[in-house]
């Protein structure tokens, strides 16, 4: 029983840590299916993390913070879309620049908004929402039904996104744009509009992941707090074979790497911490090598589309 309880605890932590990566992965998925490769999730999450704290601070509600974060995400998404869809610029380069912008702009704005204080600005944050009865299920009850609302949202988005992408007409249209924009165009689908929408909505979902980092587990913004999760989300999409459920599993496996680091350190086994830091990244590479060849990327991923 004790062992089961411990495992339940690990699962609880794993799910909570996976949520931001899952959100970022789902946002990227939407873009990827429209044929766009955006490596700028890291920068988008950072600016969103700051916007969430700012919104929560000025409007006194964590949900307003989430809204502001998603708006900031939408602006970053629009920037990406203008440059890569309309101007057909190299998507990787624009994504890399978005990462630089997200890091430096969030640092600068943090200073402008909150000044130099010894104490960080604390704001309203997400509270745990226990679901009655279900959260009393032994072992898994707490892990699945005693989380923060945004964690539920992240995991509920998985079936929603799956349904949208694979069972609805707009989802089919989106995928056909990613597979072959020329054919989609001749079928009367507005390729550019689809890509713009996918980028903006996708960036908003990524931004929700960023908001979780600053107002979910914590209630303040600190510089560079995303710490590589945006890149891990990129890998989660490939590892998840471009399917929402796959991304969910991928995010949970990667974050299990962090749970393992926690367990190893608490147990005091004496592995140098620098190696513990590497675990999630090495796990990502290993997962990629195993699954990359089997993952079927949208055929036109990363290629700019030119009409006519």
């Amino acid at each position: 029983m004790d062992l089961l309880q411990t495992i339940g605890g690990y699962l609880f932590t794993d799910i909570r840590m996976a949520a931001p990566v899952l959100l970022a992965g789902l946002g990227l998925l939407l873009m990827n299916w429209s044929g766009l490769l955006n490596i700028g999730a890291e920068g988008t999450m950072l600016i969103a993390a700051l916007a969430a704290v700012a919104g929560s601070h000025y409007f006194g509600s964590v949900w307003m913070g989430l809204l502001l974060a998603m708006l900031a995400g939408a602006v970053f998404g629009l920037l990406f879309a203008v440059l890569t869809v309309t101007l057909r610029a190299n998507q990787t380069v624009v994504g890399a620049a978005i990462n630089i912008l997200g890091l430096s702009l969030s640092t600068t704005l943090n200073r402008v908004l909150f000044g130099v204080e010894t104490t960080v600005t604390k704001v309203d944050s997400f509270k745990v929402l226990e679901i009655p009865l279900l959260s009393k299920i032994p072992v898994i009850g707490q892990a699945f039904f005693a989380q923060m609302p945004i964690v539920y949202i992240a995991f509920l988005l998985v079936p929603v996104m799956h349904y949208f992408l694979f069972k609805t007409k707009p989802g089919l249209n989106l995928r056909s744009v990613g597979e072959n924009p020329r054919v989609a165009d001749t079928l009367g689908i507005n390729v550019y509009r689809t890509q713009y929408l996918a980028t903006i909505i996708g960036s908003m979902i990524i931004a929700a992941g960023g908001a979780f980092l600053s107002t979910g587990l914590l209630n303040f913004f600190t510089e560079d707090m995303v710490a590589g999760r945006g890149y891990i989300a990129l890998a989660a999409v490939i590892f998840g074979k471009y399917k929402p459920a796959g991304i969910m599993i991928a995010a949970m496996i990667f974050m299990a790497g962090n749970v393992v680091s926690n367990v190893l350190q608490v147990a005091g086994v004496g592995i140098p911490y620098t190696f513990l830091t590497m675990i999630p990244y090495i796990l990502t590479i290993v997962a990629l090598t195993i699954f990359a060849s089997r993952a079927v990327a949208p055929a036109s991923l990363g290629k700019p589309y030119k009409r006519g």
Partner: protein
Amino acid sequence: MKALFTTKMKTQGKAGAKQVLVSFGATVFALALGMLLIYAIGFDPFSAVVAMVDGAFGSKNAFGETLVKMTPLIFTGMSYALASRCGLTNLGMEGQLYMGALAGTATGVYVSGLPAALHLPLTILAGFLGGALWGLIAGALKVRFGASEIITTVMLNTIAISFIDYMVNGPMIEPPGINCQTQPVQSTAQLPNLISGTRAHWGFVIAIVFVVLFWLFLWRSKRGYEVRVAGLNLSAARYSGIHTDKNILLVMFLAGGLAGLAGCNEILGIQIRMIPEISPGYGFDGIAVSLIGNNTPFGIVIGALLFGAFRAGGNRMQIRAKVPNAIVSVVQALVIFAVVASQMLLDKWNEHQMKKMNRQESEVA
């Protein structure tokens, strides 16, 4: 098929010069935007720009600093450009730079008893190999498993940096083990000073030599031609019998080596010893450098000059105008946006002109 590629490449070369010029204009535009931002958060934009130009070119010392910053940027710029010419996206310059620096430091510290004429080249070779092997990992993962190099290179960055933290704090720490740094490299492995009174060192000359080698490889060798063909269209290259897998491995090896030299030269010319955080982001700047240089040898030198001046001038801007230097990064991002946008607008304009000419020609006929 071959003829088509050749013409495509030739037009690319001619447009190159024009694009560098347009990029320069876009940079000025982005700088103006940056000034606006500096003004918006409450600093004096005019004194900021004066300080920036002064810090980059205002004195012999300032110019020396610009050269110091240029040197690693030329290498990382070439690294990104080389991979890019082959259709690969190498985002792992930062990690390759660190591994090159580590290998160079190890050779510079632990190999002893050699004259400088042997020790220095050996150390530089080690630096190249350190980065090259780290780059080769990403290449091998792509060829063998189909793992996207965009992701593996990023992951390898974090792993490399953690590994360096470990080495510098552990096996390679300077006795008795207080400061997290290695011993200094021996004097026989240090790069001599280039301009007295400044920090500019011979690494700059080595960088220029490699720019020439870069040009010779891509435009004067058969293998280089294959690489460029593969970059234009990977599947078409495969059809015409080019061993693309072999080329991917070669290019990731060479690109990693170039980035490794950036780190190794920084150690041998400036730092003398390995410490964590030797690179303030030279690896990521390489993307912007090659972008501004349009992946051409001359353009890369210009791009490195621009971003080197940015870094040197940015320091002075913080000192003189008190502008927090996170702004410098914001401006750098703006430069990248402006440059890609301008290049694409130029493309569109060229197309438009082409269409117009075609129309006129058909009317004449």
